[in-house]
Every structure is written in C-alpha cells, then in structure tokens.
C-alpha cells in the first residue's frame, strides 16, 4: 500500500486482499471499543443500531463502488469529490476525511490502552498507571506506530490479509463458544431507553462501518479493479455486518446490556470472561479475546495512521494543504510531514477528549463525508453523463438520495458538544484554506459558489492564523 508519486503502486491486491483491506479496517477496533458504549446508549437495542447502520452505510457503499470503478485514483472519497466539485468543497471533504482518520486513530489508541490493561490484568500483571492514567498507553502506541510509518513504508496487503483473518478467527471463536450460552431473554425489553435511543447509538457506532472507504484509497493497487473494487466494497460490508451482528448478539445475550455497558470499551473482553473456557497455550479463554482486542485496535490504528497521512499527502500534492505535507522524505521515502502532522492531532485528541466524544466525532465526520460522496456521485452523473461507469448504482438515484438523507438524520442525533468541536475544526480548516489561497496570490474566487453559510462564520478567526503565512 505505497502511495508515493513516482514510486508507483503495483496492482498486487486480488479480490480477497482488497476485501480484507475493507474488512480489516472495519472489523476489530469498532466492535471491540464501541459495543459497550452503544449498549449504554440503547440497551439491548444496540444490536438494532448495528444492523440499521449496516443498511444505511450500504447506500453510500454503492456510491463508492460506482465512483471507485470509474475513477482510478488513490485517495478515496477526497479524489472523487475533487473530480466533481469546486476546490473549496474538495478541500472540506479532504479536511474532514483527514480529521476522521485522526480521531479514529485516537479512538483506537484509547481502546487499545483499556484492552491492554485488561489483557495483562487477566494474567495477573498490573501495569504501572494502568488504572489511573490509561491514556499513557494510548500515547505510547500512537508514538510507536507514527514512528514506524514515518520511517518506512508499511507492510504489504498480504500481511494485512493475514492479520485480518486472525481477527475474524478470534471473533468466530468468541461467537462459537458464546452462541450456545446466549440467552435471547436478555433482548427483552428491546428498547429499555426508548426506540429513539437507537439513533444516537447508530451515530456513535457509525465509524465502525466506514472501513470500506480504505479500499477506495488503494484502488490503483487492485487487480482487475473495475470488477474487483465494487465487489470488494460490497463484500467487505456484508461480511462485516454479519460478524458484527453475531458478536453483538452473543455479547448482549451472555452478559446482558447493563453489565456490557458498564464494561465500556472492554465490553467484548468482559463478555468473553463470562463464558470462555480455559484454552491450551493461551490459558484463559478470555485472554484470547482480550488479545484479539489489543491486536485489532493496533492493526486498525496502523490503518488509520496510513489513511490519515495519505489524505494529507494527497491534499499537499494538490496544493490544498501546505506543500511540505505533499512531499516524500528524501531518506525514508514516506510522507514524513503528513504522518507527523496527523500524529499531533491524534495525541491531542487522546489527551483532551473523552472517549465517547472521540467516537462521536469520528462518526459525525464520517457521516458528513459520506453525504458529500453521495452528492459527488449525483453531481458526476449530471456533469459527466458520458463518463464510463463500469459499475452503476442500481435504482439510481434512490440509493444516493437515501444515503444523504439517512446520514444527515444520524448526524442530527449526535450531541451538541461534538457538533461544536466539529464546527471548530471546520473553522480552523477555513482559516488554512484562506491563508493558502492568499499565499498563492489567487483570490479565493471559487469559494462564494458554495458553503455560503460557512464562510461568514469563518471570517473573524481566519485572519489570525493567516498572517504568519502572508
């Protein structure tokens, strides 16, 4: 997965590898970290939230499939939006995608630290500061992966496939042992917090369904891309939803929604403790699941470190972010500055933002990004009717319109604090955009066409960061 100018990526990923890129990004961190938080919000209806999210995201997946098959660009959603819309819109898209990946990185790092502390605890080891300051381990793991990605290009798609298969296997072991002991009675009452509580739970867990976006960021490396990318996108989503539903069913069925909620981001490991027998070699069976959680959050963290730096790199090359972000390091051959810049935001998010808000933020930006991708699919159909579309959205324009409406609806149920943080990040983005436009010596001409509502809000702040650059 090397996106790097003249180091041209080689088409080396088959359908299985491409599917696993998507499954790997979705399965794992999301399910381990967010199941407990979803149960806290919606009780046993958390399983309905996961099922509905799968449906909602499928509409956007169709748009991704059409765009990815037609537009051979690494860079995913950002690249497609760049094709369809004026620079300001693609800037906002890239800016929010970048932030989504970084915040997801913070989420996975926090999930890692909780599960790591839990994991060693199962073996009777207490790590220093584990209880009082778990963020320490989140910071350490981010630093480690940022260093790895800054200093060398990452592991190949083949390794990614193996890692993903291990994650799936661990979850299937969990389901295999848990299914006979799951008690359907735990699912009544279905809506302990009211049916509407499903919506915020969906918003919270939505980030867990955005991994297929990563397939779209590596399209140029996929064999026979026009057939395999749409297939991989739909397949990875299907596989993921099935596994999610099985895991959540077992977790709630065994532990009940209340205790699950109490366990927070270590919910799945706690559920495993309730029923896993001792296994050979690993000892306690719950240890295997806790290990799976640690392993999954680590691999997901690695994926989003790559994803975030790649978006920043793509934007730098398009001169939508400062040029140095779009350059490869002369010695390491990596987008060094882009990786470091992403790391700073992840570290700050870990330190100052509570995990629930981190999850909400990641989901909100993911929802907004998906809205824009659906709009891009519609806009391109209008603007470029003769564009070759090897995969076409069935029943167009129903799916993209539904995708837009449902993503917006879910966004509305995310709490105001998250929205405030999101708007704050957009304001910072507006300032960066304006500063870059001025430095280029071009008037920000295309800007007034769109985002008229956003621009005036940006005005007071944007002069401040702009000046040092002028």
């Amino acid at each position, binding site marked *: 997965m090397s996106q790097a*100018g*003249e180091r*041209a990526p080689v088409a080396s990923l088959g359908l299985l590898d491409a599917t696993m890129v998507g499954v790997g990004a979705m399965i794992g961190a999301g399910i381990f970290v967010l199941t407990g938080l979803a149960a806290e919000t919606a009780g046993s209806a958390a399983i309905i939230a996961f099922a509905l999210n799968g449906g909602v995201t499928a509409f956007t997946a169709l748009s991704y499939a059409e765009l990815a098959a*037609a*537009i*051979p*660009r690494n860079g995913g959603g950002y690249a497609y939006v760049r*094709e369809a819309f004026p620079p300001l819109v693609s800037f906002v898209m890239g800016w929010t995608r970048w932030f989504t990946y970084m915040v997801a990185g913070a989420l996975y790092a926090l999930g890692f630290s909780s599960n790591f502390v839990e994991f060693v605890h199962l073996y009777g080891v207490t790590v220093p500061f584990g209880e009082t300051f778990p963020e320490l381990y989140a910071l350490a793991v981010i630093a480690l992966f940022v260093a790895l990605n800054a200093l060398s290009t990452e592991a190949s798609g083949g390794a990614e496939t193996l890692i993903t298969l291990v994650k799936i296997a661990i979850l299937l072991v969990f389901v295999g042992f848990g299914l006979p002991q799951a008690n359907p009675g735990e699912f009544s009452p279905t809506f302990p917090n009211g049916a509407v509580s499903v919506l915020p739970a969906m918003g919270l867990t939505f980030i867990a369904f955005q991994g297929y976006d990563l397939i779209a960021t590596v*399209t*140029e490396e996929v064999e*026979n*891309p*026009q057939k395999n990318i749409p297939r991989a996108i739909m397949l990875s989503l299907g596989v993921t939803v099935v596994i999610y539903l099985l895991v959540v069913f077992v977790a709630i069925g065994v532990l009940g929604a209340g205790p699950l909620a109490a366990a927070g981001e270590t919910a799945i490991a706690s559920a495993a403790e309730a029923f896993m027998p001792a296994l050979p070699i690993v000892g306690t069976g719950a240890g295997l699941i806790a290990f799976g959680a640690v392993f999954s959050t680590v691999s997901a963290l690695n994926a989003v470190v790559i994803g975030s730096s790649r978006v920043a790199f793509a934007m730098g*090359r*398009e*001169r939508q972010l400062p040029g140095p972000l*779009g*350059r*490869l390091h002369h010695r390491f051959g990596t987008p060094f500055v882009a990786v470091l810049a992403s790391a700073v935001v992840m570290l700050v998010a870990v330190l100052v933002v509570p995990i629930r808000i981190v999850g909400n933020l990641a989901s909100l930006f993911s929802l907004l990004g998906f809205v824009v991708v659906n709009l891009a699919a519609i806009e391109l159909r209008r*603007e*470029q*009717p*003769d*564009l*070759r579309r*090897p995969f076409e959205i069935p029943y167009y324009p129903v799916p993209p319109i539904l995708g837009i409406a449902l993503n917006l609806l879910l966004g509305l149920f995310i709490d105001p604090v998250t929205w405030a943080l999101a708007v704050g990040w957009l304001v910072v983005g507006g300032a960066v955009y304006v500063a870059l436009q001025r430095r280029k010596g071009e008037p920000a001409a295309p800007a007034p066409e769109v985002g008229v509502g956003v621009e005036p809000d940006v005005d007071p702040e944007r002069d401040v960061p702009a000046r040092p650059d002028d």
Partner: protein
Amino acid sequence: MTETLHIIIAGGGEVGLGAARVLDDRGHNVTIIEPDPSRADYLSDAYVGTVIEGDAARPSVLAQANLERSDVVAALTDDEASNFAVCMAAQRMATVRTVLRTSAPPGEEYDAFVDGTVFPEAFGARAAANEITGAGVRAIEEIGGELGLEIVEVEVTEAAPAAGRSLQEVSFPRGSLIIADAAGGRIGGPDTVLEPGVRYLVAMEADVADEIMNLLRG
C-alpha cells in the same frame, strides 16, 4: 515530486493510452476521451485514467472532462484535423496548455496555435532504423538544436582503437561524452575502461559522430 497535473487526453489509441500510462505512473491524474465503445471498454480495464466515451471534437463531450480544472489537453488521435479542433476548442473553453499530435512532420506551422506538437512517426522511424541496422549502434534520443546533439548506444568492437582502454587514455573529441555503460552500471569517469562487446551510452554532437564511431567501432 512536482504538483499533480490534471491532464485530458483526446484519443485512447496506442499513443493516447501509452502516454496515459506514463503520466499515471508519474502520479498525474488523467482523463481519456475515446469515441469507440469497445476501445473505451478496453481503456476502462487498463484503469490508468477516467474514461469519457465520446468524440472529443464535440464541445459537449470535451466540456465533460472538466477543462477549467485541468492543466493540459493533449489531442492524440490519429486525425490531425480533429486534434487541431480539440486544441482550439479547449483554448476557447478554458486556460490550458495544449499538445497536438500531427500526422506529418509539423514544422512550425502550429507554433502560433498550440503549446506543443508530437509526431510519433518520427520515433517509429528511428526505432525501425535501429532494428534494421542491428545491435551495434542505436539512436536513443535526438536532442537536436544547432549542434545536432544525439544520444546513442554503441557496442565497442574488438577491433576498435579504443577497445580495452580507459577514458583517460583515449582522447575523445570535444563535443562528446561517454555517459555510462548501457546496462546503467556506472557513470563514465576517467578510469572507465571501454570493454569490447559492451554497449555504452554516448552523447555526441553531429560533427564528431564520425570520429566517435571510428574510435568505438573501428
């Protein structure tokens, strides 16, 4: 790495597709416009650029390629007249660089109208000459200019005066440079020895070409 260019290629034949591949490899964004549906299919499968199916000489088709957000339009079909039409239309529709493929040596007639011309047959002719004469001497690139600068690949023969000698022993004429051995082993320096049977890349001005050939080929 320089900035990513957005490039529109009109005509997805072998020249258009070949150019698209090279540009895609260098990290640029390519859109190809191709009228023939089955060829458009083939181009889609190649997956080096976005493919628009239609005749680029029609403004309604050309407009779909997002001219105002593109840097270059290269009209590379085998029909010179429609290439010219594409370039002219593109310039009316947006500010872009234009490159025109000609089907005869272009001379200077297009200089006032387009930013660059390509005459692929010239490259074909050189390749043909290379194959016809065999492996001893191959023209790699003609830089041209008033000195007639050319880069050739020359195999040193056993009987050549320079065979087996180092560059500091042989006095090559001014206006020539042994760049490297053709395998790209290393850049030539004073202690580079010209081994018989090995091919070397040589840059030379036209008026010393004879002398160089004498020294290397005998």
